[in-house]
């Protein structure tokens, strides 16, 4: 990868890079777990909370802000290993992914449904 190319992320096709569950071990697994456990609420998303790069990620951020949750974000577009590794680690194929106390809560559909039912607010306040 050309370190001088600022567009390297955009040029790299993450979908062609296959990481199997067996590969999510050792250093990658430790790295994934350290990010998941870095805060009570961690959102793995495309972009960051100020500049989401995808409508689903933007929607999840808006919901979390609306219920007044304190959360950290991780931009998966900046880290292809985490992006592919996390899909296998959690057996969940899409982003965003929200983790609460180290456990996957869901993607945008689930977060939206839990927001509407009030369950999300109860969870983050628990």
């Amino acid at each position, binding site marked *: 990868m050309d370190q001088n190319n600022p567009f390297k992320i955009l040029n790299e096709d993450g979908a062609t890079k296959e990481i199997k569950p067996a590969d999510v071990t050792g250093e990658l697994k430790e790295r994934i777990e350290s990010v998941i456990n870095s805060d009570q609420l961690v959102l793995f998303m495309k972009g960051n909370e100020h500049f989401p790069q995808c409508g689903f990620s933007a929607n999840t951020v808006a919901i979390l802000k609306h219920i007044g949750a304190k959360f950290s974000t991780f931009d998966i577009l900046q880290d292809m290993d985490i992006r592919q590794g996390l899909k296998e680690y959690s057996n*969940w*194929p899409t982003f965003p992914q929200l983790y609460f106390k180290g456990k*996957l*809560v*869901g993607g945008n*559909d689930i977060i939206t449904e*839990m927001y509407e039912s009030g369950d999300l607010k109860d969870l983050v306040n628990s």
Partner: protein
Amino acid sequence: MTPMQEVEQLIKNNIEDAHVEVSDLTGTMDHLNIFVASDIFKGKMLIDQHQIIMDILKEDLKDKIHAVKIKTMTKEKYQNL
């Protein structure tokens, strides 16, 4: 059988008491809207409920189906809708 009918059958084969509704979201039969009501979801978090469905569809999701929108609930909740 259409992909929608196949998915409906596949889910019913795996979840005995399932009430399943599958529709085509885009007209291309590869973006499917899936609704499942079953008592196996009782007491489970939504993520776990969705993962049960994702696991059943795992092989089909690799080629036949591009994306799914899932909604799950218990039979009890479905009957009180």
